[in-house]
């Protein structure tokens, strides 16, 4: 049995749980809890406290696991646990919440200091009011000054086609490119 493990990370409300729920063939095993932090509770009801888990079965020998991490910094020990067990990473960034860009940047640095695995940045909530333009987000995440050649794609976590497209772009990160 061969398992491809992909982690989905990002700030609270970026769309991690939704992303996994949209593509998973099983009902996502979630560990959501009601948010008590007043500032966040004003716009979000639940939050993941351990991990979300989703699955895709390709055939009897090959499956894909997807793990969603909690968003808040206090759960960074979960990133550690997950980071060591995955083959690829998706970082979701809600582009209508610029106050979270710093957190996203922090996660990016964190991952990068520890592993070199295929990675992609998915920009969510591009359809929302106050959404930043892609180029500006790239700048805010510090991707330009580090000369990072990391794919950045728009993704709507609620839309299966869009999520699939995001995964396809992630798969292009493997070299040599798998035959199509």
């Amino acid at each position, binding site marked *: 049995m061969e398992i491809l493990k992909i982690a989905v990370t990002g700030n609270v409300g970026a769309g991690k749980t939704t992303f996994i729920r949209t593509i998973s063939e099983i009902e996502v095993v979630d*560990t959501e809890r009601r948010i008590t932090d007043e500032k966040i509770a004003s716009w979000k009801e639940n939050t993941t*406290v*351990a991990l979300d888990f989703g699955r895709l079965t390709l055939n009897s020998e090959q499956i894909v696991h997807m793990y969603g991490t909690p968003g808040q910094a206090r759960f960074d020990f979960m990133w550690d646990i997950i980071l060591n067990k995955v083959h690829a990473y998706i970082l979701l960034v809600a582009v209508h919440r610029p106050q979270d860009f710093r957190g996203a940047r922090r996660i990016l640095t964190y991952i990068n200091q520890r592993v070199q695995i295929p990675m992609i940045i998915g920009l969510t909530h591009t359809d929302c009011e106050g959404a930043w333009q892609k180029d500006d987000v790239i700048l805010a995440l510090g991707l330009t000054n580090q000369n990072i050649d990391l794919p950045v794609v728009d993704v709507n976590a609620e839309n299966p086609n869009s999520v699939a497209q995001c995964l396809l772009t992630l798969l292009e990160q493997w070299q040599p490119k798998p035959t199509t």
Partner: protein
Amino acid sequence: MVQASMLNEIIQKFVTSISGIEGAALVTPDGLSLVSVLPSSMDEERTAAMSAAILSLGERIGQELVRGLVARIVVEGEKGYSVMVSCGRDAVLLVLASKETKQGLLFLEIKRLVRELMPLLG
């Protein structure tokens, strides 16, 4: 929380009066610290998040594997126990105890503490 000082007092008393108890903390189910009396080497913020994470995983396991409601989660280490119990809908209790503590007694004391805390948590 409404009764923060009272909660604090009760937890403080629990930790100091019962031998073998090395610390205790009350955290929200999403991992924020409410009250904590922990050894200074431990970070209250991260401890709170960890307690919430493991309790939620334990409860998921209880559900998935049809073990019913989860009474407690115990992590037994070389140097002692960490026990996590749900304390009503709004809180999770974490208790740290030394290796020498008698398990049965420990669980009993924790049960008593939860009963005392519950009404204050509303």
